[in-house]
């Protein structure tokens, strides 16, 4: 690693210390972020492979490659990995950890040791989840929702997986706690709340959800574990329990958690678009406040997952109504993003393309969500592959697309190298097409009535399932191409300057990769807020001048 940039005498954070232990016991937020990144990418590959195999299984009716039980374990493990090990930590733990302190103008999060501890909890939780593969009757076959009473009676390793989710939950809580305190206490002295970059607002809203919703699912999962151990019917009706209460408690967390996934992603979009358009963001306050509004309203809509569950009719109506209210702040964000492109000076970079691909996918995801929210319509589409498509559009087409977009946006900053732009664009195009073929077909077949979690299906659903599977092949090629491109560029790419995209938030004022304490000079903050491009020249003046 000889990529010390010529004009700085300070070592970057990679060079500061070497060896395995300097990583796994590091107190540097940037290293913790990278630790998370490597772990998450690994699990993402595992989860993806499972998704890929599931698509193969569904290529034709009847059994193809596995038996029903294995299929059920596959989608459960796929869901658990993707939700608890990939998407919830993805953006906050990787990009939040790396960039939140830099964007606030400080050198670390508020509790560096706690931050490292969260990562360790993540690893422990992940190992616990993986261990279910090794013993007994194999991983749980309950679906990632663990609905009682099936999860109480199943003889697979449900308890271990639940405990893993519990531990992972605490990892997520501690990350959130750290971010809240960091944002309250460690902003640069001149940075008032409404001068924070929008990514921090996204993380702030997210952190509150992590903090206040996760414990509820934690204790709920624990109740199921204890119930399995003692055979007492907290949720099992044969012993007097109420399975619907389980669903309530599960979704009290698991609805808000979808906003844990999407709010940081929306924050990143609010960074990439102004930078690409070289102009101030449209409606800064509207975007900032709508993040908080989504987080707040998101707590009260959980019942929309239970429209056919036997919950009381009155409750269903109230939940449907509030569900529609959540859509409004989201709409406001989308409109403001598009308006930000108006009269910009747009540089069409891979990161902008990932972002627009995100907006397109997320529009489909969000708008299909409106159908789910409408009572009569949801009765039809509930628990069909339509829902599966809805959440892949929001989670995969939404959050994961932004995750990759952010990887392309901040790649030069994190590793000090540029990647091959054309390859990046081709990879995006393949992924985008494959994605929409896969899930577009799933959306349609779900609307025709194919239930989800189906190992086998009626012949009339065959054609669309075949298309969906073929789509997943295209997507595979795209994603593998992207990952290869980034890995190769990490070694052989051109050296990156401080500010490759001419951004004005604070992370572009530090060297690439940043030194241990991030800043080599006092950060320049515009009094007009975080997206004031008139200070660009001042920022870029640091580029080549050796500073003292």
């Amino acid at each position, binding site marked *: 690693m000889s990529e010390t940039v010529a004009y700085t005498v300070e070592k970057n954070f990679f060079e500061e210390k070497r060896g395995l232990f300097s990583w796994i016991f590091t107190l540097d937020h940037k290293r913790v972020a990278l630790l998370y990144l490597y772990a998450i990418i690994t699990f993402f590959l595992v989860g993806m492979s499972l998704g890929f195999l599931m698509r193969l299984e569904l290529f034709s009716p009847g059994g193809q490659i596995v038996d029903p039980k294995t299929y059920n374990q596959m989608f459960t493990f796929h869901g658990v990995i993707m939700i608890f090990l990939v998407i919830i930590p993805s953006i906050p733990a990787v990009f939040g950890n790396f960039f939140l302190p830099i964007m606030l103008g400080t050198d670390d999060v508020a509790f560096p040791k706690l931050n490292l501890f969260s990562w360790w909890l993540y690893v422990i939780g992940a190992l616990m989840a993986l261990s279910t593969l090794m013993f007994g009757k194999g991983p749980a076959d309950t679906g990632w929702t663990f609905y009682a009473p099936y999860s109480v009676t199943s003889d697979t390793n449900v308890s271990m997986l639940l405990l893993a989710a519990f531990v992972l939950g605490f990892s997520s809580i501690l990350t959130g706690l750290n971010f809240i305190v960091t944002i309250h206490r460690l902003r640069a002295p001149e940075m008032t709340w409404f001068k924070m970059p929008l990514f921090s607002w996204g993380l702030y809203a997210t952190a509150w959800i992590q903090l206040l919703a996760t414990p509820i699912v934690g204790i709920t999962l624990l109740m199921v574990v204890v119930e399995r151990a003692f055979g007492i019917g907290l949720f099992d009706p044969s012993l007097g329990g109420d399975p619907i209460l389980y669903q309530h408690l599960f979704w009290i967390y698991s609805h808000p958690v979808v906003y844990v996934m999407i709010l940081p992603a929306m924050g990143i979009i609010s960074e990439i678009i102004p930078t690409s358009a070289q102009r101030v963001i449209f409606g800064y306050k509207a975007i900032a406040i709508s993040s908080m509004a989504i987080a707040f309203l998101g707590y009260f809509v959980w019942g929309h997952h239970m429209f056919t569950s036997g919950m009381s009719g009155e409750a269903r109506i109230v939940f449907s109504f509030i569900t529609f209210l959540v859509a409004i702040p989201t709409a406001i964000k989308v409109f403001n993003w598009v308006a930000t492109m108006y009269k910009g000076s747009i540089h069409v970079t891979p990161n902008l393309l990932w972002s*627009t691909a995100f907006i397109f996918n997320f529009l489909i995801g969000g708008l299909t969500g409106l159908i789910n929210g409408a009572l*009569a319509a949801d009765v039809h589409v509930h628990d069909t592959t339509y829902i599966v498509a809805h959440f892949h559009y929001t989670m995969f087409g939404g959050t994961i697309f932004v995750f990759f977009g952010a990887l392309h946006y901040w790649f030069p900053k994190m590793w000090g190298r540029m990647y091959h732009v054309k390859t990046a664009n081709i990879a995006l195009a393949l992924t985008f097409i494959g994605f929409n073929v896969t899930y577009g077909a799933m959306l349609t077949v779900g609307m025709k009535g194919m239930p989800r979690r189906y190992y086998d299906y009626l012949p009339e659903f065959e054609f669309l399932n075949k298309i969906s599977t073929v789509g997943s092949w295209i997507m595979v090629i795209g994603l593998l191409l992207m990952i290869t491109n980034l890995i190769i560029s990490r070694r052989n790419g051109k050296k990156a300057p401080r500010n490759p995209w001419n951004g004005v938030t604070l992370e572009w004022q530090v060297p690439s990769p940043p030194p241990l304490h991030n800043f080599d000079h006092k950060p320049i903050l515009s009094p007009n807020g975080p997206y004031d491009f008139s200070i660009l020249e001042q920022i870029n003046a640091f580029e080549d001048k050796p500073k003292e």
Partner: protein
Amino acid sequence: MFTNASNFTNDVDLTLAIIIGISLFFLIGLTVLMIYFMVRYHHTRNPKATDIHGSVKLEIIWTVIPTALVLVMFYYGWAGYTQMRTAPKDAMVVKATGRMWSWSFEYPNGKITDTLVVPKDKAVKLELFSPDVIHSLYIPAFRIKEDLVPGKPNWMWFIGQQEGSYSILCAEYCGDRHSYMTSKVDVIPSADFDKWYNDNSAPKEHAGLVLLKQNACTSCHSLDGNRLVGPSFKGLFERKSNVILEDESQKTIVADSAYIVESLIEPNKKVVESYSKGMMQSYKDKFTDEQLGQIIDYLKTIK
């Protein structure tokens, strides 16, 4: 879409059409706008960006319009749904039981079937029960679905408006054979229905087989030697097999009458090797002694 197969299809499809229409408008509109901006304001064409900080007027507009639109969506969803939860008083009541992994339907006169047969243009109310885990009765063509929650009675209703045979699917994940938990609903003219309903002629099948089918045994135990969730019934009688007792020790048993009865009442006491404990629910008090005799008689015949 718009098949009119049940009294709900029109309302549900209308709700879907309205929301999809509005959605397509925004999806296409915003996508086109984005692409247009990317081309029109590309930095080669527009080297100097104009800073616009925002506009309160626009913010209000694009808060109010979506609010109005979602209220419309909410209204249609609500209206269609209200009907689904108000069954007419004179509806024919059928008790629908979903268990791992089959359906059975019990009519007011005691007739039990595994396909649902209903008269055209008559309201049918299904009372939903599940003895084991949650299932969900889903008739895609009718656009209806409702969960069967163990321990908590639930219901749904519909009017079949077009003759035909439609799929019944289970839409709530319920274990290994969830995707095989299917059946049919046959909508037939009233006259035919009455004939069918009052036809009490004895079934041509063995009484034991009828019992096995009615109680969903055959959804887990095949009659032809195939391995499903439980051991096949073929050759079961007087078969030797290894079982695992409650204290985890092993034992070889011979499947005689007493063992079969015990398997029904306390299935988890002796679990056949390589099969899962807890799968089969207890059928205690479900069968009379006479019926048990019929079942065993039948099992003897499929050696």
